[in-house]
């Protein structure tokens, strides 16, 4: 399948600061792409370049095979949902949603009809005659989405669209965003720093850091087999410790020599990452992590989140997600272990 959007070796410099460093990315038609990264990682810069609000210092952007690198936003087949919604405060919701059609010369009766349809799609059929200030944050968000969707863009860009909403509303909007995307079939590109949001939404998850793409792929793959230390810590939590490959499939760690399936060549310094849900207690047949003193236990309903400092390396804080009925308390000495097939071996 030919990609809908091709970003080719794009760099963006602001003076001496390099916001994007030789980034290449393909976006498939009908896909939901999430750009995930901390602030300053370049994800919003990349979105601005896709939307035409920034012209990259070097590199090329192709949309539907057409070179759009220097094309202004108005001419591109993209629309943006802004973080602060950027609704027109002096217009009704109906006029806001119909604005893009008005700019395309669509007659007013047709405009109203299509605005009504899209408002129904986003679940706000009754808001047509209201002003933006009469709506709640979540409702404004939906209006912004409707306004961007009504012109039927090839790519819809969303800049931290759920950032201003409270947690409950956010989870609810996530589901709706995904459902709307599936229904209209437009490719969505969504910027966020919330990894849970990324995992819930993404067909294609792009982890960014320091102006580079650290890792990209299906969210499940990025979580279970992260390509780098950064994506292992940013996409979910991990306990990270160093190791060295000393023979084929043999790794020297502070916990002794471990037999792990890896094709990293002997002599390499590597990093090992352990997801909290793969840490177990009192099971000596698995890879032992030795004893650790529990420094914190947080009961989370379906599980207990445990932090412990290990005897073998006091500086290492082990994160574990134990069953809700596990009997552990702060101050306890516990034997920790892990399954070798879940240990992540990272070379960068």
């Amino acid at each position, binding site marked *: 399948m030919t990609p809908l959007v091709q970003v080719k070796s794009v760099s963006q410099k602001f003076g001496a600061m390099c916001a994007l460093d030789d980034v290449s990315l393909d976006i498939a038609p009908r896909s939901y792409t999430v750009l995930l990264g901390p602030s300053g990682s370049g994800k919003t810069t990349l979105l601005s370049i896709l939307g035409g609000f920034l012209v990259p210092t070097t590199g090329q952007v192709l949309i539907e095979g057409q070179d759009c690198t220097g094309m*202004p*936003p108005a001419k591109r087949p993209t*629309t943006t949902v*802004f973080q602060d919604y950027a*609704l*027109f405060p002096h217009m009704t919701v109906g006029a806001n949603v119909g604005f893009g059609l008005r*700019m395309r010369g669509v007659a007013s009766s047709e405009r109203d009809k299509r605005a009504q349809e899209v408002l129904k799609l986003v679940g706000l059929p009754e808001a047509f005659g209201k002003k933006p200030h009469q709506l709640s944050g979540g409702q404004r968000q939906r209006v912004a989405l409707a*306004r961007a969707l009504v012109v039927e863009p090839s790519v819809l860009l969303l800049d931290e669209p759920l950032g201003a909403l409270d947690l409950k509303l956010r989870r609810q909007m996530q589901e709706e965003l995904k459902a709307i995307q599936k229904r209209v079939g437009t490719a969505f590109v969504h910027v966020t720093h919330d990894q849970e949001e990324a995992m819930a939404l993404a067909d294609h998850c792009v982890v960014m850091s320091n102006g580079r793409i650290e890792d990209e792929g299906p969210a499940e793959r990025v979580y279970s087999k992260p390509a780098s230390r950064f994506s292992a810590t940013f996409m979910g939590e991990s306990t990270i410790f160093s190791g060295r490959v000393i023979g084929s499939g043999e790794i020297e760690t502070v916990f002794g020599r471990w037999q792990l399936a890896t094709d990293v060549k002997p002599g390499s310094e590597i990093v090992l990452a352990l997801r909290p849900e793969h840490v177990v207690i009192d099971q000596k047949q698995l890879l032992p992590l030795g004893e650790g003193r529990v420094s914190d236990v947080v009961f989370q309903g379906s599980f207990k989140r445990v932090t412990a400092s290990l005897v073998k390396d006091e500086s290492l804080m082990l994160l574990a997600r134990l069953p809700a009925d596990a009997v552990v308390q702060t101050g306890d000495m516990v034997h920790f272990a892990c399954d070798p097939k879940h240990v992540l071996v990272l070379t960068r």
Partner: protein
Amino acid sequence: MRSAIRLATIIYAVLIYGFIFLPVVTLVLFSFQATSFPIPPFSGPSLRWYQAVLGDARLTSALLNSLAVAVISSAVATLLGFLAAWGFARFRLPASALMRGLITLPLTVSYLIIGMGLLVLFNSIGFPKSLTAAGIGHVVINLPLCFAILYSQMGEHQANIERAARDLGAKEWQVLTLVTAPMLWPALFASFFLSMTFSWDEFVISFLLTRFDTTLPVEIWNLLRSGLNPKTNAVGSLVFLVSIAFVLLFELVFFRKSRS
């Protein structure tokens, strides 16, 4: 003790407000004087002097001149101030901070200096003294104010709203007329009415730059030269009434804005 403080507070407030408003109250009161001198004892009320004012062709035409100069010069100042603010807020201009400083500088220069400067300039280029000349003077003094008000209202959020309009296919002139200006409507309205009030009772510039047709403050000054007369009180009260109307309109607009 507490009641003594309370009493002192009240007396203080009465003195302050008396100091501010007594001259105006006296002016308005003696405009209703029935006899020929605006001095105690009060002999009214009578509308005799208002009748004299409205029957005086010079005063009524000066009043209309003043209104025309105020409306037109304020509209021009607001339009220019809006465009300048938009330019400074939305585009990266060389020496932007310095240029913004220069554009607001006339706020600090006295009207006398501005008036004399314009007088010299108009003389040298052969532009005649006229209501147009005074109107230009009023644009000069009001533009910095309009610019400052409008510039303060053009933040990053507004810039994003304009971006959204462009993203949806609006051309630059459509962004300005359909989004930027309507969005700043209260601030535009406020700039316009504030300019109107300043232009309405401005004397020095009008005095220096007009000759035969002149504005109301200059005409009142002419009247005063022939000595005190309840007619001056009556026309002063009318000026005051119009100023209050401007201020009320202005407050109304801002009140409506803060409520929404």
